């Protein structure tokens, strides 16, 4: 697999591990936040932590759109199916995310809801074309990587005059979340960021420049393969050692400074910012999510159907908010592994395999057991 296998080579991993071991200052504890769930996944799945010195700590950030989706939005989607008899289409990742009252989309489907898993917005368009007498709603989630696919679908639906297709938009914005973490009133326990891979391939590396500057935090845009993660960690460690705080790009094979201008153009044409949006675990963040512009109101599920804002409550004792900010680790949470497990997730960090707690529980709890 070209561009995949080369970035997982064990021999190179050993070389990188040696260099990292020689580069770290033994007196310094390095706290690196990987923003994306993709990095979290790679770190645990490949066992990257085993190759890193003990004073380099990965802090798992909020970059999993499934994890940060507020419960109320899932409740909304389930109500859509129950009250309006729509065909609800969504990516499989959302199927098991818990809604209020211990239900989820899988259970709503079992109860008779017409809920379909899709791999692409093109599948949704096909379902809409094939079912002209039913309303088809795409439950859209994702960061900047996934948003362009929704924008294309809306443009196609408009061009084809599809009147039974709409989007329940939950697309969120990465830089706003990073800013929210850095602006938190309590001290931020993060030295540097591994920047998003595929989000950056769309938005480019430029949007991070103000962060690096204003908050004096080094950022390295890092690919999702394990060697990318190690190389990016090395670049961050060097910046920290040298007192630099710049945006560097390790993932230059897929990320440029400007990003994908065509995709950005499509997104800007169809979507605009919401004044604020709730992130599960992080709370309300200004300018952190998108909605459809008025010109595309016909394709906006929130305007087509009655969808009241639902304020769902989080479980008491859940440490997800602190974990998402890097202030606590999954193992610091009393619920972890007792009442909160991947089978029965309580907080946002457990709901997807990329969430900090789920990844830690499924792949990483080994260390504390020994």
């Amino acid at each position, binding site marked *: 697999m070209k561009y995949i296998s080369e970035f997982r080579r064990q021999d190179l991993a050993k070389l990188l591990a040696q260099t990292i071991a020689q580069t770290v200052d033994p007196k310094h504890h390095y706290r690196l936040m990987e923003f994306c769930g993709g990095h979290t996944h790679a770190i645990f799945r490949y066992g990257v932590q085993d190759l890193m010195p003990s004073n380099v700590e990965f802090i798992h950030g909020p970059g999993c759109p499934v994890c940060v989706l507020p419960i109320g939005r899932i409740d909304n989607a389930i109500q859509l199916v129950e009250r309006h008899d729509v065909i609800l289409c969504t990516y499989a990742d959302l199927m098991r995310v818990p809604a209020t009252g211990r239900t989820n989309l899988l259970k709503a489907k079992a109860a008779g809801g017409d809920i379909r898993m899709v791999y692409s917005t093109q599948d949704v368009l096909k379902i809409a074309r094939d079912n002209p007498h039913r309303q088809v709603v795409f439950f859209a989630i994702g960061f900047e990587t996934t948003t362009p696919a929704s924008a294309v679908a809306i443009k196609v639906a408009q061009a084809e005059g599809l009147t039974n297709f709409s989007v329940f938009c939950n697309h969120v914005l990465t830089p706003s979340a990073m800013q929210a973490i850095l602006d938190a009133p309590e001290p931020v326990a993060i030295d540097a960021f591994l920047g998003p891979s595929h989000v950056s391939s*769309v938005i480019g590396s430029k949007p991070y420049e103000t962060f690096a500057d204003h908050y004096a935090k080094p950022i390295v845009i890092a690919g999702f393969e394990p060697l990318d993660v190690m190389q990016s960690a090395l670049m961050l460690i060097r910046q920290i050692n040298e007192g630099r705080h710049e945006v560097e790009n390790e993932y230059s094979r897929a990320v440029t400074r400007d990003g994908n201008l065509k995709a950005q153009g499509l997104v800007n044409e169809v979507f605009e910012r919401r004044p604020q949006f709730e992130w599960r675990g992080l709370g309300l963040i200004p300018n952190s999510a998108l909605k459809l512009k008025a010109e595309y109101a016909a394709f906006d599920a929130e305007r087509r159907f009655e969808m009241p804002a639902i304020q769902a409550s989080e479980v008491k004792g859940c440490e997800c908010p602190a974990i998402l900010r890097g202030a606590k680790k999954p193992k610091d949470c009393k619920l972890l592994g007792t009442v909160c497990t991947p089978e029965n997730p309580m907080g946002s960090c457990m709901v997807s395999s990329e969430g900090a707690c789920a990844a830690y529980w499924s792949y990483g709890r080994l260390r504390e057991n020994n």
Partner: protein
Amino acid sequence: MCLALPAQIQIIHADTGMATVSVDNIKVEVSLALVDDVQVGDYVLVHVGYALNKINEDEAIKTLALFAEAGLTTTP
């Protein structure tokens, strides 16, 4: 989020704006709506059925060289 995979363009279907891409011998159909100037043989990042970006071969080689360089500085 954002699982995206490098795949090679095998066939471009100009009439539909789609392309057949492959990862090893596995072929899938993806939309080219988000990319310009791609040709058969190019590698693109595929995400949720769309080609997201072209992979820059020169940059990939440079990055791989960085990993190897790491070794050069440590092995005597």
